[in-house]
């Protein structure tokens, strides 16, 4: 029982990170119908920025302060938001309206550019990561909850509540939803599509930055290819929840994190990467629109 509880706690913490990344995928998919392959690498970039900033600002020997961690995270959010903005502006916008496969290839190109550009600058080897203050685990009732896990869960809840607010209760959020339903009609109604899409990229990318810092704190290391697997899994989470659907991404992330943790907890951790893709294939077979997704028939 306690073992199960322990796995659940770990699963929720992992799932929260997936959910944060999945939100970026799902929002961009919502407005552009594009799988932003580079999203996982923006996530990596967030962790990278965190590493550089903390290496510069904090002393290895000294325990990082909470204020420092906040500052580092904010910086990462700003940098990633900017990068997201630039990616959309430079690579995706000129291709809007061209066949989807072209945008897809471009997205993969951008993704590899970030990965291997990162490898060129940063070197391929993992480096230790420490942005959050060190605290002892909380132990009670036979389970131990890491400080990082607590921070992860707390931060994610706050961010998701904030996002929910933005998407469903602000003008910009309404515009985003309008664009996701039908961009050309939204434009006719006076919505500035370019602005909305840029905003979506900035929003998604800054969430990915936070996820990057949390992930790198949980598995305390960073390297240029670290975005690949979490990125793919977060995409699976988005599909599981119903791609284009914001609450769906949260749900999908959580479920995927739990599933992965349970499988690796009860069988072997070498199977954890297989979980996500099995889920993906299963969901594509059974309910391709995802748990909360909508099905729309193509207009002929």
């Amino acid at each position: 029982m306690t073992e199960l509880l322990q796995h659940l706690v770990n699963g929720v913490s992992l799932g929260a990170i997936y959910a944060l990344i999945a939100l970026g995928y799902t929002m961009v998919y919502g407005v552009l119908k594009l799988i932003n392959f580079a999203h996982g690498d923006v996530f990596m970039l967030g962790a990278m920025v965190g590493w550089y900033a903390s290496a510069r600002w904090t002393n290895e020997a000294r325990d990082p302060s909470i204020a420092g961690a906040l500052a580092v995270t904010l910086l990462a959010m700003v940098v990633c938001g900017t990068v997201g903005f630039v990616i959309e502006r430079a690579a995706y916008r000129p291709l809007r309206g061209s066949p989807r496969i072209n945008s897809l290839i471009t997205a993969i190109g951008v993704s590899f550019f970030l990965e291997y550009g990162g490898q060129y600058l940063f070197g391929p080897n993992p480096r230790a990561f420490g942005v959050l203050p060190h605290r002892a685990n909380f132990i009670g009732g036979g389970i131990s909850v890491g400080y990082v896990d607590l921070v992860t869960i707390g931060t994610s809840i706050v961010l998701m509540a904030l996002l929910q607010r933005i998407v469903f209760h602000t003008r910009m959020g309404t515009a985003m939803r309008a664009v996701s339903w039908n961009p050309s009609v939204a434009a006719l109604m006076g919505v500035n599509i370019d602005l909305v899409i840029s905003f979506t990229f900035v929003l998604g990318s800054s969430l990915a930055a936070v996820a990057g810092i949390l992930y790198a704190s949980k598995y305390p290391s960073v390297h240029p290819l670290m975005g690949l697997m979490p990125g793919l899994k977060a995409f699976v989470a988005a599909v599981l929840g119903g791609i284009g659907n914001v609450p769906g991404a949260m749900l999908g992330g959580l479920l995927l994190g739990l599933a992965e943790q349970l499988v690796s907890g009860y069988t072997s951790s070498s199977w954890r990467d297989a979980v996500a893709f099995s889920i993906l294939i299963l969901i594509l077979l059974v309910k391709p629109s995802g748990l909360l997704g909508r099905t729309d028939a193509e207009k002929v």
Partner: protein
Amino acid sequence: MRRKSSVAGFFGGSAVKRAWRGLRSWIPFFAAIPFLYLVEATLASQPSLEYAFQNINHIGIAIILAVSLNLVNGLTGQFSIGHAGFMAVGGYVSAVMLMRGPAQDPYRLFFVLSILAGAGAAAVAGWIVGKPSLRLRGDYLAIVTLGFGEIIRVIIENTPFFGGAIGLSPIPHRADFTWIWATAVATILIAKRLRDSSHGRAFLSVREDEVAAEAMGIDTTAYKVRAFVISAFFAGVAGALSGAFEGNLAPQSFTFVRSFEIVAMVVLGGMGSITGATIAASVLTILPEYLRALANLRMVIYSVALVVLMLVRPRGLLGTTELWDFVRRRRPRAKGKREATEALIDVRRASIRFGGLTAVSDFSLEVRPRELVALIGPNGAGKTTVFNLLTGVYPPSDGTIVIMGRDTRGLQPHAIAHLGVARTFQNIRLFRELSAFDNVRIACHHLTRESMGAAVRHGELSVVEERWIAERSEELLEIMGLSHRLEELAKNLPYGEQRRLEIARALATGPQVLLLDEPAAGTNTREKGELMQLIRSIRDRFGVAIVLIEHDMRLVMGVSERILVLDHGVTIAQGLPREIQSNPKVIEAYLGEKYAKEHFGSGAAS
């Protein structure tokens, strides 16, 4: 060996002739082998050329990979980025066999067997991966294949049987220059034959417009899966050759970086161009050897090149052009129409609801042979929805639709097209990047019986059919007054000609019922007059029944024998043109209650 022999041969020509034909189609392949062998025997053993030959062999393997991936990513317009995964499957299966197999393999029969086993395993893996993901849009395939490639690698790394992270070694060196290049030549040849066949056009039609392809009778999902499985098969072949050439296999060489390199070859070379893929495979294999100084930046350069190319030249360097496109083709014979007497289409009380909205309710329609029926009604009345019901794009919520005596429940659009219903689209859906000729040829697809194997072998039937398709297509284009546009891309045709091309394409499926969705939209008065003539002559010449959706009343009244009026999804009237013209309900639907009352008395309101 011209026209006469092909027909004679088809109806039981001598075995010798048959054998000769079979052989002749493989001349490029058989001619290549002695040449390759000669090169190998004289040059490959020289130590000074060892490094050069190593590169040349790498090129050969890269060509097999790029040409096979091109089948999926270029021709069929899907997007796979896990080719290295299939390569790994083929490589490992074959390597395990070779390492446990006989030490001596004089005629390399066992080697061939191991290649086939590896390729077969890769094809099975392709089927497992492709089947669920290909039903959906291409983006999913990208993710699934990427994930698959990674999983395969993880499995191999964790399986001692496959050598784990260290890899398998030593694998007997069975693949050499001759073997690799003979396979590369064969791959190119097979890819070319496929591409030039009816199946190749089916692949292209999937890339261009899936809805239209289905309407022309092409089972799009099946074709996507086929392309994917064939492509995986050849990736497996490449993997097997690679292992038997290098003498070892390591999971590190099958990362997604490898997959990405192959994607880069296809995209750079031109999506859909076999020659392009071949050239790009050669260049991208050799280039890094000469740019060792930039080795760390190689992937960065690739990715930037890819993005820039997409921005500047989205179809890749060669596009779909082939080098052999500069040499040309020949042509075949139309067959007579069957005559049917019963109702071709029998719709009984069909309804369809989208959410809470009933788009069409209680719709009944019977179409008899050679009939000209018009379906009219104000905008949003549900006319196109009726076409979508008839062609299986939407299944009805209630009611039955019987076509050629067959209940169409559960039938996919392509199956309904096979029954003999063809359509045009209100918002023209041509295969835009293909020529007018190819647009029509694609629609002949389901009338042919050649198998993919026959297409590759250039079997007798496939040659005859290919000629027949060409002749039929040319004839249809001529009837539609498009002979001069044969080689023009569909997207470049003027609007009116695009509409006529759609009709030609629909006729090419050999329908008994032709559904025309607003053929006169956007045409001027003179063209409308011509269209009226055309519709009549199509009916007379092809003996088809025509159901017409049209807003232009002069055309409708001039051409149709029977009219159905829809309003808000309900059939409000049907009858002869004269009856409809004076029907108060119809007038009300078109002009409003007030107008009807003022001009036709109170009867209209009831």
